[in-house]
């Protein structure tokens, strides 16, 4: 019953308008406009590529490392964008919440969907890069949507949790910024997992229990090169290897419960 109510006609209409509005407003007043959606990760990629690949000589043992790096950055950019936008989704729309009744999840969903659209554009760029550099297309590419789905669900879970907590505790915004910064380095984005593995196998295994790390590595495996070290290839115990999955499931369950419990009071609490 509750599931049927999700995506009722009215909710779909609102989500659509919110996403469209968000896109219109995001780059307003900038000359390059929507191009920034592409330029941002590309510029970040250029910097990281120059610093880590050219100067520090990271990833020498991984084939197609530039693409491997770019894919990681694109996925990470999506994750930060979705959670950051989700975080503010409720608080920023306080004015609307106090004046009209509508399902609150719509706001969080809309904010993550616009990040998802950006991801689609950026993935197209990665794809073009692959064709240009002659990296070749893996047959496992068909599994990539599953990785994206998992990443989206995880980001959505965090967005639900963070946006709810943000209503009462505005500190969350600052905390999350720092947490993201920390996780950027704790996730194998700019460095290959093999670097950690050479130092400590336990640390590498621990690192790969992070759902974002698992997803990025799986996506690289499916899209770029089968040399990629994944959670499944690193951890033998199948139960332990599915911990990232379980974390995602646990988060989305708990975050939904928390969100639904508090959503009734958003209008009063903001």
């Amino acid at each position, binding site marked *: 019953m509750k599931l049927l109510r999700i995506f009722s006609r009215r909710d779909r209409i609102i989500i659509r308008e919110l996403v469209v509005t968000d896109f219109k407003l995001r780059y307003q007043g900038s000359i390059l406009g929507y191009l920034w959606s592409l330029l941002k990760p590309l510029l970040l990629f250029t910097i990281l590529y120059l610093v880590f690949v050219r100067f520090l000589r990271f990833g020498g043992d991984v084939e197609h490392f530039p693409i491997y790096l770019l894919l990681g950055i694109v996925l990470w950019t999506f994750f930060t964008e979705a959670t950051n936008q989700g975080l503010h989704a409720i608080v920023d729309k306080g*004015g609307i919440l106090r004046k009209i009744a509508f399902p609150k999840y719509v706001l969080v969903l809309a904010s993550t969907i616009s990040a998802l659209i950006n991801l689609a554009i950026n993935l197209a760029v990665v794809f073009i890069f692959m064709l240009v550099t002659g990296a070749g297309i893996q047959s496992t590419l068909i599994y990539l949507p599953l990785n994206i789905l998992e990443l989206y669900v995880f980001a959505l879970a965090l967005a639900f949790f963070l946006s709810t907590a943000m209503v009462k505790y*505005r*500190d969350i915004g600052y905390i999350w910024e720092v947490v993201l910064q920390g996780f950027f380095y704790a996730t194998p984005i700019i460095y290959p997992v093999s670097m950690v593995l050479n130092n400590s196998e336990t640390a590498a295994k621990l690192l790969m229990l992070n759902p974002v790390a698992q997803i990025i590595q799986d996506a690289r495996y499916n899209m770029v090169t089968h040399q990629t070290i994944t959670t499944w290839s690193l951890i033998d115990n199948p139960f332990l290897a599915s911990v990232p999955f379980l974390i995602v499931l646990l988060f989305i369950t708990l975050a939904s419960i928390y969100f639904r419990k508090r959503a009734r009071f958003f*209008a009063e609490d903001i």
Partner: protein
Amino acid sequence: MNDQPAIVVENLSKTFRLPHERVSGLKQGVVNLFRTERGYENQEVLKNISFRVEQGEFFGIVGRNGSGKSTLLKILANIYVPNSGTVTIHGSLTPFIELGVGFNPELTGRENVFLNGALLGFSRKEMEDMYDDIVSFAELENFMDQRLKNYSSGMQVRLAFSIAIKAKSDILILDEVLAVGDAAFQQKCFGYFEQLRNENKTVVLVTHDMAAVTRFCDRAIYLKDGKLLQDASASEVAETYKLENIEAPKPKKGGPELSTAHSLVTKVTKQSDETVTVTFNYESEKNSRMYIGFSILKDGISVAEMTTAPSKPLTGSGSIHYTLDTSVLNPGVYQITSVLCQIAGRKLLTVSKRPVTFTVKGEDPTRGGAVKLADTWQF
């Protein structure tokens, strides 16, 4: 469906927890967890309210600011959650707690129409079908591709109202929409209300405007300090409201505070055929900055009202003179009533005791009323 009441409210109560120190940080939240005494006070906004609105009824909710009207409305609109009691609604309901929900100043008028429409439940296609109607009703054909931030507030309201009236639901909730807009726009609102009445829509209207209540509402409730004071016909409620609020300005304890610390004596000190000079002698024992205000009346009707400028405050005691060119007045007897007020808070200090009169001499059977207009006849 028609035999069911549209809205049934039973024993509704709402309490807001107002923190003394706002808990908007984690630290504060953690600290409060360990506190034995809680840093908030409960404010009862609605106390055990019960009423029902029948199908097709035009229902008014009146009350002064802070009486709980808006909270009640937000509970009806499912925006707030009541602490106890129930609200049962039969039929679809559209709340216009405020017009133009979701309006974004950075978007164009056109884009805002679609966004606002979506929040009211209209799809893009439905909005496109209605779009021309909306724009022409708002009389904004030439402005739709401008950003909303470049609209005047009146234009924004017109646009919002034009979208709002397209919402087709069984029950409409309107909050003080009458308070905004110019006379022509209010006329449009009234026209819309007439139309709703004729269509037998269920409407809940919240307003201070007793004229609107008596004109449109069948029934009304009167809220005071969160309690339901009266549930009766619209005219009865309007009557109570007027009586209550005329009495309200009188101080509750210790009689009028027009103390002997202040005095104001008004006299006509000089009068010629063309001018009259009025002298105000004021005295204050307190160190307040004051102004004098007075009105000139003819046959009990105020002809003109004046005050001294706040930029020239009066202090202590003294006298000031006011000279008027009486050639603008028709012959007759005029009365002056004057007051001494404190500038801060516009507090009334004292009233001049005796009424003062002056006469404009002459006779002109071709003119009546107070003002001699500068006019000409042509034959």
